[in-house]
């Protein structure tokens, strides 16, 4: 929370940047970059998120505590993904067969 009044102009510039990034991410989707399509899309989404957090949510002018909390939240989310993936990336995986599951079983 801050009582610094941000000029209206700033908000409008940020908004225009965000719209530009949306157009960019949509446009890039029509160019074949192989696996980098995903990377670029996520990078753009990440920078859009940063803009919203820093300017619209005004974290730029917030206390260190708030910043730590935000970083911690994303860190925990990363832990969830990383440790779950650590199993999946190193596991022998066989896609599901369908032979047994076409109909729910009847209970005796």
């Amino acid at each position, binding site marked *: 929370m801050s009582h610094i009044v941000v000029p209206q102009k700033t908000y409008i510039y940020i908004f225009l940047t965000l719209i530009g990034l949306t157009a960019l991410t949509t446009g890039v989707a029509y160019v074949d970059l192989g696996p980098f399509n995903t990377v670029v899309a996520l990078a753009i989404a990440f920078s859009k998120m940063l803009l919203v957090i820093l300017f619209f949510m005004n974290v730029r002018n917030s206390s260190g505590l708030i910043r730590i909390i935000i970083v911690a939240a994303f860190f925990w989310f990363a832990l969830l993904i990383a440790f779950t993936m650590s199993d999946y990336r190193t596991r*022998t*995986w*066989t*896609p*599901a*067969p*369908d*032979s*047994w*599951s*076409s109909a729910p*079983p009847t*209970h005796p």
Partner: protein
Amino acid sequence: MQGFPFQPEQASTVAQSVDHLYLFLTALTVFFSTVIFATIFYFMIKYRRRSPGERPRAIEGSLPLEILWTAIPTLIVAVIFIWSSSLYVRNAEPPKGAMELFVTGKQWMWKVQHPEGQREINELHVPLGRPVKLTMTSEDVIHDFFVPAFRVKKDVLPGRYTSMWFEPTKLGTFHLFCAQYCGAFHAGMIGSVIVMEPDEYERWLAGSVPGESPEAAGEKLFLQQGCGTCHIADGSGPGPSLLGVFGNPVKLTTGESVPADDAYMRESILAPRAKIVAGFVPIMPSFQGQLTEEQIGNLIAYLRVLGKSQPPQPKEEGKK
């Protein structure tokens, strides 16, 4: 088991090594509990309140002590971790030449198929002193194949193969439990593992009604399902020849190599387009829903036989 046992029977090659670790951990537990309880009792008696106005001198703490009692547990758990993980990794890999059985879990029974074609339900006959590898899957929910006397356990999952192995070292009948809750009669999903002398096992195999061997059933299926129309043995068909494939690495269109094991074969039957062999086009239809678990097992058994023959020599550059 008679009397009042404190230890389950040791009936497999890994049982003793697991028990050694277990005993070490028990000793550790007893030692630390005793030390801590004794210290607490000693302090409580020695420093009991003698007058209501007593104000003991403040003690802030002691860094050397804190370091000491951080370091000691760290060292101890490091030892346990290394001991236990190496044991686990050693126990995870089945020895070469293990006898292979196929196990299917189903609410609430265990179905076992022997390589010679014998089937049994809730019973598993195995010869003494020979490593046995189980390849397992479930037809419905998650089960767990647990033989306490062998100290082995593994979940049996629907839609996936898991495997485990053991080598019995003791004759007799041992409990087989389902150790993952699977519904109403979970407690009834138990059976026995019967360890016999090898020659007695042979007699049992001969005496029991032999079904078709999985390889023979698989060969029949291979013809019935028309697999051979495309997978022509000399490699001239639209699908790769399957001679000499099983057990060897396969090169894919993506450039990577994967081992042609049970999992790969199963995937190639059910989801043929997931991993295409280099030089071929994805035209094979999926057999998902058309084959039972048992039939898939039989087909793979036949593919294993084919894998032992010589692959055809490549005729042209494109096809490897």
